[in-house]
């Protein structure tokens, strides 16, 4: 007689355990910065030692440069980025009514470039696009991540969450198996961080250059031997959105340095 409800109770317990293991408590959330060595932290803390600032410098020049058939610079509409772009990176991916779905910061910059400046689009991970994104992201430094999760955004957050928890690739791993369940432990000598996107675009020592969150996500996917999504596809933007909502309230430290 016991076995029948006993199995049910076990299943409830398993489901409950899975739900608990799947979430990092708010008080235990830590930025990748906190897992870094003292030397790498020092590199990020000093703006003249942080190589990402070279891109920021370039981004500032591009911000003021006229481009495209419209002959307009970013600054002609948006003015001083220090005030107008404050907090913008912390709010992306954000809902774009024209496309009926969320777009990330790079796509927002590109939409402006193509529609308002009437300039040819920049390639993902191109130096110019990363420079502009880094310059815009710098204006959110120290501000809490604040993506809007409202009714029309919810399906996309859920889709991103499903991707985060879905096992994939030849190694049959999900993102959450490393970043929710085993953060703080070592993977090939490196600490597994919690995957909070607080500092993108960031300078990764391994890349010897600046890269976007999507580049990082594609690197992870290759690591679990899954076919990486192409840059800019909805799946990656949804995953970005999920990660940002998961890190809501954490302080931005873009453009960061990571090992």
């Amino acid at each position: 007689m016991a076995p029948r409800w006993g199995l049910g109770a076990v299943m409830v317990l398993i489901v409950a355990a899975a739900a608990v293991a799947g979430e990092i408590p708010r008080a235990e959330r830590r930025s990748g910065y906190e897992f870094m060595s003292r030397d790498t932290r020092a590199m990020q803390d000093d703006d003249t030692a942080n190589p990402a600032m070279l891109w920021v410098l370039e981004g500032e020049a591009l911000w003021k440069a006229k481009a495209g058939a419209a002959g307009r610079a970013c600054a002609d509409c948006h003015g001083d980025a220090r005030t107008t772009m404050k907090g913008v990176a912390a709010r992306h991916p954000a809902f774009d009514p024209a496309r009926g779905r969320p777009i990330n910061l790079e796509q927002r910059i590109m939409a402006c470039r193509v529609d308002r400046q009437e300039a040819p689009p920049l390639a993902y991970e191109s130096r110019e696009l990363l420079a502009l994104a880094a310059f815009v992201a710098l204006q959110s430094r120290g501000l809490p991540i604040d993506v809007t999760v409202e009714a029309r955004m919810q399906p996309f957050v859920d889709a991103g969450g499903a991707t985060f928890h879905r096992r994939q690739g030849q190694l049959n791993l999900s993102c959450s198996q490393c970043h929710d369940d085993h953060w703080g432990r070592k993977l090939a000598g490196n600490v597994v961080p919690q995957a909070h996107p607080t500092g993108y675009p960031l300078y990764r020592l391994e890349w010897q250059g600046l890269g976007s969150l999507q580049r990082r996500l594609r690197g992870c996917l290759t690591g679990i031997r899954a076919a990486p999504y192409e840059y800019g596809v909805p799946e990656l933007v949804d995953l970005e959105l999920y990660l940002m909502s998961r890190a809501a309230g954490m302080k931005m430290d873009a453009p960061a340095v990571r090992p």
Partner: protein
Amino acid sequence: MAGALINAPERAKRGEIIEIKTLISHPMETGYRRNQSGVRVERDIVRLFVCSYNGTEVFRAELHPAIAANPFIVFSTIATESGALAFQWTGDNGFSVTESHAITVD
């Protein structure tokens, strides 16, 4: 697009040891790597960095392929007189960047 960041004091006391930090944008391609079709990628590095203080050379560094991209060079000198610190990076493929930093010594 080449850019450089300099962090050095704008004012200093005579005889004071000042720290100068420099960061230059450069890929530092070693010349040992091969691309996806097996062809060797040409070396492209910064070969020499020189800092002059009012025309007198105070620091010189030769760079080699093992140095990471965007070389960050920190050194110190003694503040002797007001004037300018001139920085020059030269390298492969005619790479040349100059920067200058004014300093007041009292």
